[in-house]
């Protein structure tokens, strides 16, 4: 495999062999090690010393179902710490097939120009892209696919990234006309914009396959893994994920009193029936939209959807739980069409819907716009694309919005907005938010759905549960697996060991895999420590420890002493 180093100051792209210290790493694991080794952790996230890394997981390109995610990593301008955020689409699979371990973007352009990185087989070049300036992610993808081929993969930023907004994410395309897979979190779109990189285009690899150390072991294990996914009651063709998408959990999260509502002031939303996955499915099928489509080639879960309006015209694809929670119930918007319109606008500007939904909730609480008034909220959101002062306040996320608008109730940890689970009634997630080196991030260790052995409203066992989930998440994010693909590898980690040994011939054992997973977290924690982040920076906001959340009237009461010892046994 090889690394592609792209120097934005000298406008050069050069290939280099993968150093031995990176050989057995991919995705989040590679990002953690590379950032720790190669950048000063205390550097300015929007300065020349930060690096932006695009990398497939260790399974990328091998044809394992649901394992083609693209990891993007950098020091986060939002959290000030390390960040890995990942997305579906075709980029992860494509990079894996091309034998590209990572694209490492270094330095930054000198005069505020924008460039496009075009990768074709073994060549890579930077091309001027000022004609793309000011375009949203949809138009950017369309224009580049018209110019360079309909089947190429486009990774791009929208206006939010160009304006260096801290809520900016990075968008990737998928198969055919699929758009809007977002590596959304942590403001990494701003890092890409700051480097002067508007887009990366990767031509579709033709006839490329990766070499296998033990093809028979790999095939046998990958097949067994796929079959277990198909047989899983959550994931197969009769499972919730496929039938209702990630929105399948809206009703359950609401019932458990954890659905962010009215800027995280309640855990129940009265109009939640209008936002449920069941309603979403019915609405889409009635209008002849699409349900059960894929974000990655060969995924057997297929949880994507294509929302259409009442005339059958596409609004957005895909609409997911986190977006429904943050720009739906959190803003007291109880109408999926309205959520879809907000979702589309966020996607086009290249904004994280979680960060932006939280910022808009704060704007509502401040009286800038009214809760539940979609037109006013859309109007405010549209200012992000125009780069007005108010638009920049929203586009810079929850913490900035809270400071500018004088709102103390800011649902954020380590500078990053909380996703769609209020930690006062799902305390396992609260522990993850308050300890993960990634900040408030549900994908770092999501306790929703953990069975009754750990009471979501209690304190007991949350610390151990969160650590276990964070270690599993590190494995998923480092191998390119989707979060939803975890049941088979949790039940039998040997599956993962055998797939990796089948590809690489490393002769790993389950102990090696366990060490690998834990090293990801160790490196990330060390990076954050060197960046100057202290335990106090990770705390759940004070108001969530004092202000009871309806309907269970609970506060987040896991003691700091518990939080500070989560990684004691790492």
């Amino acid at each position, binding site marked *: 495999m090889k690394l592609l180093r792209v120097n934005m100051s000298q406008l050069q792209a050069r290939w280099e062999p993968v150093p031995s210290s990176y050989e057995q790493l991919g995705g989040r694991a590679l990002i953690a090690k590379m950032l720790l080794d190669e950048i000063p952790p205390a550097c300015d996230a929007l300065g020349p010393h930060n690096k932006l890394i695009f990398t497939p997981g260790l399974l990328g390109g091998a044809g394992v179902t649901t394992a083609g995610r693209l990891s993007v990593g950098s020091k986060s301008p939002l959290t000030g710490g390390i960040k890995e955020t990942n997305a579906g689409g075709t980029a992860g699979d494509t990079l894996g097939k091309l034998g590209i371990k990572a694209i490492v973007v270094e330095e930054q352009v000198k005069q505020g120009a924008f460039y496009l990185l075009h990768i074709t087989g073994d060549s890579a070049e930077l091309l001027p892209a000022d004609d793309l300036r000011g375009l949203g992610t949809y138009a950017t993808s369309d224009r580049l696919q018209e110019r360079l081929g309909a089947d190429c993969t486009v990774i791009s930023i929208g206006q939010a990234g160009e304006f260096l907004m801290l809520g900016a994410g990075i968008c990737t395309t998928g198969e055919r006309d699929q758009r809007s897979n977002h590596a959304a979190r942590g403001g990494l779109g701003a890092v890409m914009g700051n480097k002067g990189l508007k887009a990366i285009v990767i031509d579709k690899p033709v006839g490329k396959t990766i070499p296998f150390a033990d093809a028979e072991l790999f095939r046998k294990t990958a097949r067994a893994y796929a079959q277990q996914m198909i047989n899983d009651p*959550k994931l197969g063709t009769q499972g*919730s994920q496929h*039938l209702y998408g990630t929105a399948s959990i809206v009703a359950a999260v609401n019932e458990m009193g954890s659905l962010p509502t009215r800027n995280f002031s309640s855990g129940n939303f009265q109009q939640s029936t209008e936002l449920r996955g069941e309603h979403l499915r019915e609405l889409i099928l009635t209008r002849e939209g699409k349900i059960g489509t894929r974000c990655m080639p060969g995924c057997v879960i297929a949880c994507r959807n294509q929302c259409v309006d009442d005339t059958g015209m596409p609004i957005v694809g895909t609409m997911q739980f986190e977006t429904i929670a943050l720009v739906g119930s959190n803003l007291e918007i109880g109408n999926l069409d309205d959520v879809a319109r907000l979702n589309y606008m966020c996607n086009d500007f290249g904004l994280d819907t979680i960060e932006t939904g939280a910022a808009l909730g704060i704007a509502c609480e401040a009286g800038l716009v009214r809760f539940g008034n979609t037109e006013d909220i859309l109007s405010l959101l549209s200012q992000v694309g125009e780069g007005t002062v108010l638009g920049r306040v929203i586009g810079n996320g929850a913490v900035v919005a809270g400071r500018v608008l004088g709102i103390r109730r800011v649902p954020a940890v380590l500078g990053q907005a909380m996703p769609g689970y209020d930690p006062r009634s799902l305390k396992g997630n609260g522990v993850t938010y308050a300890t993960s080196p990634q900040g408030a991030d549900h994908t770092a260790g999501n306790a929703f759905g953990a069975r009754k052995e750990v*009471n979501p*409203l209690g304190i007991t066992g949350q610390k151990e549960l969160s650590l276990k989930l964070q270690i599993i998440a590190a494995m998923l994010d480092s191998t390119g697996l989707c979060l939803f693909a975890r049941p088979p590898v949790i039940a039998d980690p040997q599956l993962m060991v055998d797939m990796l040994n089948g590809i690489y011939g490393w002769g790993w054992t389950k102990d090696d895999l366990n060490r690998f997973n834990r090293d990801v977290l160790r490196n990330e924690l060390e990076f954050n420590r060197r960046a100057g982040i202290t335990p106090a920076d990770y705390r759940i906001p004070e108001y969530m420890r004092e202000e009871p959340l309806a*309907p269970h009237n609970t506060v987040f009461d896991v003691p700091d002493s518990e939080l500070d010892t989560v990684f004691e046994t790492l």
Partner: protein
Amino acid sequence: MSVEVEVFGQLSPLTERHQFLRLKRPVLVREVANRIGLKPEEVGLITVDGVQGDMEDTVEPGCRLCFFPYMSGG
């Protein structure tokens, strides 16, 4: 006294989606599931008055009981 029962997702076609069952005494969740025709192995998540529970929990008259299929967050 009755207990309010709601089922979600792919459990919905298996029984009435939203119903009120008359109870003379507290019963186990498992008994309610049997009464409405749900097999325990089809149920992934249970809440009793919004609190996550299981088949062996007791349901009192006046409770709200929800059955969800297997699902995962993300």
